[in-house]
């Protein structure tokens, strides 16, 4: 195991295994570093075509980390766990950067495996981090950050896993299961982000009340939650629940607006056949799809007569399953621990939270307005990531 040669690993930032030298969460040096990283990323004009880089930079700004720090304060004394090893998804270009930041905010040294796919975003962030780390004021931080790229290799994964104090695995069930076969030290903790299912609840009345501008804003927000990532992120909704008596009329306003927002979406021929196959597979598998509405191949909608087996209906590339409910409580029976995000429009977040906690549901970790489904943060999948990646020094 010792003879992992650098040939197999491309070191994008750093050049070796960082030492474990824990810092307190939200340390000044980390927050200063992130603030400067944010500025560098936003100042570079070339980055403007990458909204995800901009969103990441926005997250890193000093004002935000200060606010998070404030929210994190609980009177306890903490330190990072040591070395955090992050395995990040190939298909969401910016996720690796957030994972690094969570590791840093918690006070850890980090090895981040970046996507094997050559996303420009990876180069942009790694370059900015590398350059910033050469500044003398970040001399103490420089040895604590390594970013690596390697083709799937259990050997290399085992090398980092065997030396980490915390392992963070992003990705689906299969990815989590296969990495989990590779041991970590007995004391190490592990954070896993598995496959999730998400839904969106919309008040029909609110949609009918909305003016044209508001409707356009809503449709754009919905587009960002779904089409922007091929509706394939864990927090992209598959199920759309319509609440209120005038669901049919509300749909008649909502979907044409979404169609207009989604006119910029590029559906490749391979996506068209994949999407149609997905629809046919769903139709074949059960009796509870009442009817299908297709606006070209952009939006497929399947109206459900019940939500019993709804989890099997996972949309992708713009396939939505719709259900009309008199009350959100109708969902209580079918929510499992696979459910992650409940995005909403025209509803009261407080009431939705009460539906989850009062109903003692096994799932639904996030309740966010439509448009914020993909906004990742230090609280994710029901974890307080900074808390899990740090330890409490009690006295």
């Amino acid at each position, binding site marked *: 195991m010792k003879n992992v040669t650098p040939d197999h690993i491309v070191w994008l930032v750093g050049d070796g295994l960082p030492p474990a030298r824990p810092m307190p969460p939200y340390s000044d040096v980390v927050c200063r570093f992130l603030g400067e990283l944010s500025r560098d990323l936003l100042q570079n004009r070339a980055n403007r075509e990458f909204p995800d880089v901009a969103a990441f930079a926005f997250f890193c700004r000093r004002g935000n980390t200060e606010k998070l720090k404030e929210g994190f304060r609980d009177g306890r004394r903490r330190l990072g766990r040591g070395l955090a090893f992050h*395995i990040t998804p*190939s298909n969401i270009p910016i996720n690796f950067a957030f994972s690094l930041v969570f590791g840093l905010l918690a006070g850890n040294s980090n090895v981040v495996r970046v996507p094997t796919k050559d996303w420009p975003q990876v180069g942009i962030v790694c370059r900015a981090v590398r350059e910033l780390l050469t500044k003398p004021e970040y001399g103490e931080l420089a040895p604590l950050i390594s970013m690596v790229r390697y083709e799937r290799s259990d050997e290399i994964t085992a090398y980092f896993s065997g030396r980490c104090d915390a392992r963070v695995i992003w990705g689906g*069930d*299969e990815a989590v299961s296969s*990495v989990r076969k590779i041991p970590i030290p007995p004391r190490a903790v592990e954070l896993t982000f598995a496959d999730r299912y998400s839904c969106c609840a919309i008040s029909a009345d609110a949609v009918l009340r909305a003016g044209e501008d508001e409707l356009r804003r809503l449709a754009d927000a919905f587009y960002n939650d779904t089409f922007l*990532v091929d509706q*394939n992120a*864990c927090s992209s909704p598959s199920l759309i629940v319509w609440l209120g008596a005038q669901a049919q009329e509300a749909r008649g306003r909502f979907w044409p607006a979404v169609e207009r927002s989604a006119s910029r979406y590029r559906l490749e021929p391979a996506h068209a056949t994949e999407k149609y196959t997905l629809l046919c597979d769903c*139709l074949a598998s059960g009796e509870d*799809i009442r009817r299908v509405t297709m606006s070209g191949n952009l939006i497929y909608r399947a109206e459900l007569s019940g939500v019993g087996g709804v989890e099997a209906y996972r949309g992708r590339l713009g396939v939505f399953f719709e259900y009309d409910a008199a009350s959100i409580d109708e969902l209580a029976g079918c929510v499992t621990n696979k459910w992650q995000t409940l995005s909403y429009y025209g509803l009261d977040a407080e009431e939705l939270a009460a539906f989850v906690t009062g109903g003692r549901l096994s799932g639904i970790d996030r309740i966010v307005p439509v448009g914020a489904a993909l906004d990742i943060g230090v609280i994710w999948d029901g974890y307080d990531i900074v808390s899990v990646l740090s330890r409490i020094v009690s006295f």
Partner: protein
Amino acid sequence: MFDFDEIASLKPFALDREAKESLFLRALGDLTAFHRQRCGDYRRIVDGLGFDASRVRDVLDFPFIPAGLFKMRDLSSVDRSLVIKTVTSSGTTGQAASRIFLDRNTAASQTKALVRIVSDFIGNKRLPMLIVDSRDVLKNRASFSARGAGILGFSMLGRDVTYILDERMDLDFNATESFLERHAGEDILLFGFTFMIWEYLYKALRRAGKWLPIERGVMIHGGGWKKLQSEAVSPDAFKDALRDVCGLRRVYNYYGTAEQTGSIFMECCEGRLHCSVFSDIAIRDHRDFSPCQVGTSGLIEMISLLPRSYPGHVILTEDLGRLTGIDDCPCGRLGKTFSVEGRIPRAETRGCSDTYEKRHA
């Protein structure tokens, strides 16, 4: 239900647009109703898509099943006990295989259609036949690869059927040469998959520096150009190469898939692929599946009157192609003609569940 034998008795390329449209409207209506009654998955799909038989005005109004669905589900319209053969095709390397269930009736129709179509190109006489493959492909008689099914189907067209590759895919010179001596002066039929012919017949002859006297041969090959394209071998280069190593002049390509074995599309001397009385084609725009005009590239929809044991009479393929004409091929055969541009390019899907990607062989 329409009478298949009646259709099989027609000349395979003699129906003009109008005659074909009326025949297919009726036959596809019958088949759609038939499968709807017998295959639950199919019924749920066509009902879910809102198909209404009373509103059909055009052959293109019938619902199409995506080829990929045969990889995900076992779609069958007969009782399992009546299935005599299961044909599998992997499509693209590393992907799940599609599974096509054949009963006696459908398998017989496939053979009949194939013979009728090919005879129009090579004549009715059974010719001595060479198969550019190994007999090993046929080892398991109940479960066939698409390659095996193709070989078995085509072998019905010949006599003294001789396989010229051994189990290691080496060219068996002795068997080939003694076959050619036996049939000196006769017309000969050759069949094989495009890639196999190139790799194991052409290259083997090249390497050995041998020349085979097959000037009176007719070759039929299919299975796609994908593997040859990576070696930059064009259809013309393929033909020239075969002429060089064995004097072959009559070489016909065909387009067909495991999902619709039998009702293949033969390429004529004008380089156009032809629909027969058993089949039809449509090209659809991937953005909304609307039909494309002649000359416009789109997804290929294949229609066949053969499938009874599985609901595969109207299939949306993952291939791109374009119509080249209707009833106007200079070769004189009527019906739609088209060309195939190959498989749709793979597309990246964003998403978050693939961190530790599976390795493909």
